[in-house]
């Protein structure tokens, strides 16, 4: 696993152009790196640092603070089961136990075929449909044991590949334009100071 591809390097440059200070693009670019490799590979983090003028330690320091960013490989499907208060009251603990039994791994573990990583997570804001879980951050509510089993079957068989992309692919829609406020000829890095004043 490697440095960012030329296409992803360009995406990183486009992201940097959106911010007054380059470092702000760090987390968005780390999502690009995780999309590329499924996790944050060492070489990719070094490359991201080069693009931003940051040391590898600064990149890693930010990356390791955040729960969604993985610095070690994980499964193709990250199953995140919520057990926080609204889910607790609706069987979230039992759902997690069921998931552990079905997948044969404890929370935090990855199945030996590399297909699934199971994690227990804090509230994922789907409390009206508790108990809930997410697979690669696509949400599933009102999850019964049976529904969990068929979800795992569907994921294994690739039947959900349209709705659940591989781990790391977060936002499938890309920004279509750069900064335009400064006008068609304007510098992308120029910070607008507020446009025309109304008569005040």
């Amino acid at each position, binding site marked *: 696993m490697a440095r960012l591809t030329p296409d992803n390097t360009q995406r990183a440059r486009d992201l940097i152009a*959106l*911010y*007054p*200070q380059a*470092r*702000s693009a*760090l*987390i*968005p670019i*780390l*999502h690009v790196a995780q999309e590329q490799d499924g996790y944050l590979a060492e070489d990719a983090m070094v490359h991201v640092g080069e693009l931003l003028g*940051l040391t590898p330690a600064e990149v890693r320091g*930010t990356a390791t*603070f*955040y*729960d*969604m*960013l993985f610095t070690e490989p994980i499964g193709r499907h990250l199953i995140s089961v919520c*057990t*926080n*208060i*609204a889910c*607790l*009251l*609706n069987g979230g*603990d039992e759902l997690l136990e069921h998931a552990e039994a079905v997948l044969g791994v404890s929370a935090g573990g990855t199945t030996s075929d590399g297909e699934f990583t199971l994690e227990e997570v*804090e*509230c994922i*804001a*789907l*409390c*009206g449909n*508790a108990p809930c879980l*997410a697979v*690669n*951050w*696509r*949400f599933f509510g009102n999850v019964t044991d049976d529904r969990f089993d068929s979800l795992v079957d569907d994921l294994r068989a690739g039947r959900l590949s349209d709705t659940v992309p591989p781990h790391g692919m*977060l*936002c*499938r*829609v890309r*920004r*279509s*334009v750069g*900064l*335009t*406020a*400064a*006008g*068609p000829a*304007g510098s992308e890095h120029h*910070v*607008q*100071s*507020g*446009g*025309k004043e*109304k008569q*005040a």
Partner: protein
Amino acid sequence: MTVSDAPKIVTRHLGNPESWRLRAYLAADGYQGLRKALTMTREEVHEQVNTANLLGRGGAGFEAGRKWSMLRKSEPVYLVVNGDESEPATFKDHMLLENDPHQIIEGTLITAYAVRAARAFIYVRGEFALGLERMTEALNEAYAHGAVGHDIFGSGWSIDVVIHPGAGAYICGDETGLLESLEGKRGFPRIKPPFFPAAFGLYNAPTVVNNVETMSNIPWIVQHGGADFAALGAGRSTGTRIFSVSGHVKQPGNFEVEMVRTTFRDLLYAPVYGGGIRGDRQLKAFIPGGASSYWLGPDKLDVPLDQDEVGKNGTMLGSGSVVAMSEDVCMVRAAWRITRFFRAESCGQCTPCREGAGWLEKVLRRIEEGQGREADLDLLLDVCDNIAPGLTWPPRQTTICPLGPSIPSSIVSAVRMFRDEFLVHIKEGACPYGR
């Protein structure tokens, strides 16, 4: 029980199955608030929001208009919209980001205009993949429509908006933690003073940080006037607000209701809202405003959804999330789970929070698992008192941000309200609820 006939404001577009698309938004008067704002002076727009007395919908409940007034006089100014919704049991912004992104963008643009922002950033919780997709798609549509970017609607005013994904950290819901995160760093909250965002925010520039639901109210307020908004609710708690109702109600969900004229009882029991407790069990207690709030008992069901009135009852409306707990809930387990959350999400900067949460979680675990001692009850309260001295409401703060002082809320509530239940765990050496 009465249900107010107040109009829906922030959720008014959600009946449309394609509410997130520009086409649907425009058909429902979308971007008319922005068009109108651009014919007004910035001061006139600001005045309408002041008249509305819109309280921030993120958790702290600070007047949005006043926040805008406190900006340090310096250029540039930034606007940052907080869509990092992570308070346990809160799921309203998640819904708005997925289903009404244009309304958020329109509110952001109007606010950016009013506060003279040089650029606006919408920070979306990283886990909200669909929300990020819908927001990005909506922003692309808005640029193509001429609502964002250069010379907006031919007004001469220009601004760019950036959708920024988070990466999973509750602490980034704190406005200063969010700003650190937006600068590409670990989400360590900043100490106030001096780092009030209005004075020294993003890149140390004066910055307005407003919540997604707060932004979603702005287009309606500009279109209809602040007075119409202030006519709903009463006192300082004006307008309508989305409450996330979860737990043991028959119909959990997000409900937009009129402030003050609606009570907790309405929210939990009215057929159009929560619909009562599942299995027609008794309500044992409810969490009124997210995991950070002190709990209330059934005797407080008739307290109105009024920020100040709830404050007088020793807790808060917070993030607007109400969790019903039936008589079948083990309160030790509930408090333990919430404490486990705070332990996991403490950023680790401040000793009382970092160490306190860990100690409290361990003590609660041993009580729940039947290894508790009678002295543990005093120990719990003592550790809580070290984090938020006096255990008063609002809590006193020994830490940089409010996460630390939020830890005691569930524990102190559970111990005060259900002391006997803790004692049964300790005396019987097991959880009476069988887990």
